[in-house]
């Protein structure tokens, strides 16, 4: 087994060196595809996190004017609860609102500057969960009925829907693009290994006639495909490592209120998927090539 592995790996490495141009072309196309896979993964996971963040929040939020009596608010709450489409109504006081926002800022590693002003700029609000998102109009109407109570009404549902639509489009387009590039990479690997097989036709013939088993003839080429995949994956991961900080800053700029980043879990996923795709495509391409050209 040790001889077999050593022999196969040595010949696989020889094969890569012997045809540097085809090998480099195969590795670079592999890198291109893996970068696309990683990019897709990062963007989708960012959108997913944004979506979760939005969906976790209430669907309708109404900020209240300063100094509105608790009784008025209580009456409004009762009116809202009376609506069949409303699942729940929660009153958030000014203090609670400030506390919530500070907690959010702390999670982002930032400081709440309102501490220095000595006042509390955060308005009290009502958070309303809906059973039926289409009931927004009716809820808004109810909220606006008592004069001077509600300052502004925010609907999160629309935002969630648009993020979800964007995520769906990116996912579909991304998968199609990755599938097409993946197919191209597969064909390039098949071709690279095919050339390696053809270049070694005489060696293969000699190997067969002196009694080399199929494994000794085939596996060096499969290892060669795996090496192309491994090299591609390692170069991709190196590029991603170099680019992770600027990418992280960029996503923070785009969605500064959404906790998206190149966190450890995502990084582990990217490493696993890039390595698996690289090795998988390299090995599969080589296997197909060897099956096609070395069957006797």
């Amino acid at each position, binding site marked *: 087994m040790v*001889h*077999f592995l050593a*022999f196969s790996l040595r010949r696989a490495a020889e094969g890569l060196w012997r045809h540097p141009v085809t090998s480099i072309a195969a590795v670079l196309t592999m890198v291109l595809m893996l970068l696309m896979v990683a990019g897709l993964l990062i963007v989708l996971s960012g959108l997913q996190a944004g979506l979760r963040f939005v969906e976790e929040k209430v669907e309708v939020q109404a900020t209240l004017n300063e100094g509105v009596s608790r009784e008025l608010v209580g009456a409004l709450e009762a009116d809202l609860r009376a609506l069949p489409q409303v699942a729940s109504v929660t009153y958030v006081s000014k203090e609670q609102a400030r506390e919530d926002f500070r907690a959010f800022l702390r999670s982002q590693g930032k400081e709440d500057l309102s501490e220095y002003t000595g006042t509390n700029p955060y308005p009290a609000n009502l958070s309303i969960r809906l059973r039926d998102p289409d009931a927004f109009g009716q809820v808004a109407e109810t909220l606006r009925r008592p004069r001077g109570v509600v300052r502004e009404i925010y609907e999160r549902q629309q935002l969630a829907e648009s993020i979800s639509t964007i995520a769906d489009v990116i996912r579909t387009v991304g998968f199609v693009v990755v599938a097409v590039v993946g197919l191209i990479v597969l064909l390039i690997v098949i071709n690279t290994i095919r050339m390696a097989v053809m270049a070694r036709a*005489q*060696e293969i*013939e*000699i*190997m*067969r*006639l*002196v*009694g*080399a*088993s*199929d494994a*000794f*003839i085939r596996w060096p080429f499969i290892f060669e495909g795996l090496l192309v995949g491994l090299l591609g994956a390692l170069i991709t991961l190196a590029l991603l490592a170099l680019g992770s900080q600027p990418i992280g800053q960029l996503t923070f700029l785009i969605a500064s209120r959404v906790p998206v980043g190149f966190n450890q879990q995502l990084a582990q996923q990217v490493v696993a998927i890039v390595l698996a795709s690289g090795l998988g495509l390299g090995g599969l391409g080589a296997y197909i090539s060897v099956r096609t050209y070395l069957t006797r």
Partner: protein
Amino acid sequence: MSLSVDRASEGATDRSGAALPRLRGARGRAGRDGALTIRRPSVALQDVSKVYPNGRHALVDVDLIIPEGDFVFLVGPSGAGKSTLIKLLVRDELPTTGLVFVAGHDLSRLKRGKVPHLRREIGIVFQDFRLLASRTVRENVAFALEVIGAPRRQIGPAVERALAIVGLTEQAGQRPSQLSGGEQQRTGIARAIVHQPRILIADEPTGNLDPLTSWEIIQLLLRINEMGTTVLMATHNAEVVTALRKRVVALEDGRVVRDEVGGYHREY
């Protein structure tokens, strides 16, 4: 149908071939009383025909027994079936009908996975040497052992031994392009015997060589035969065949037309 039986094998087989399995197990030499006992055949073909998909009959009803330790010339014009016969022996092809036994294996029943094991009992020498240009003589010879997974500690001594037999110890570090034709063929022979096969098949080994060098190669093959290896040599070289007075099997249009010791060799 003609039955080609070596002197030593006479009486051991019948036309039905029923004795073949027994032949495989039997082993012996001429006894003290002079009674002929048989040697185990290295190669036995019974009623072998080969028809290629294009309809060409490459071999027709061939019977042939080569006892272990023999030296046999295989002669015939181009297209007579020599190459097909060799392909059958190394199980590169299967016969359309008939039985082929090589080194104790029934090739029709040999599982695909066992073919490499059969080939490890055979050494092959090619007319065009088929050496790997990027490797030295030593590496070319070692290659035959590396690819069958031989342990490294066994490869070194086996290669040196094979190089010593063919007389190439001095040139071990050179590449094929630095060698003469004769030396290249001797490298090919070293590669063919490095794993100590029971049978050596030489397909026109002197075809690309001048007469003097050809004689050197023949002498080398005879030496290997004297060391106990069965040798089957396909050749066009009439001079060699006539001079050596070894067994000659002649093929024509896929049939064995002569099988004689020291056989007259027609110019093909």
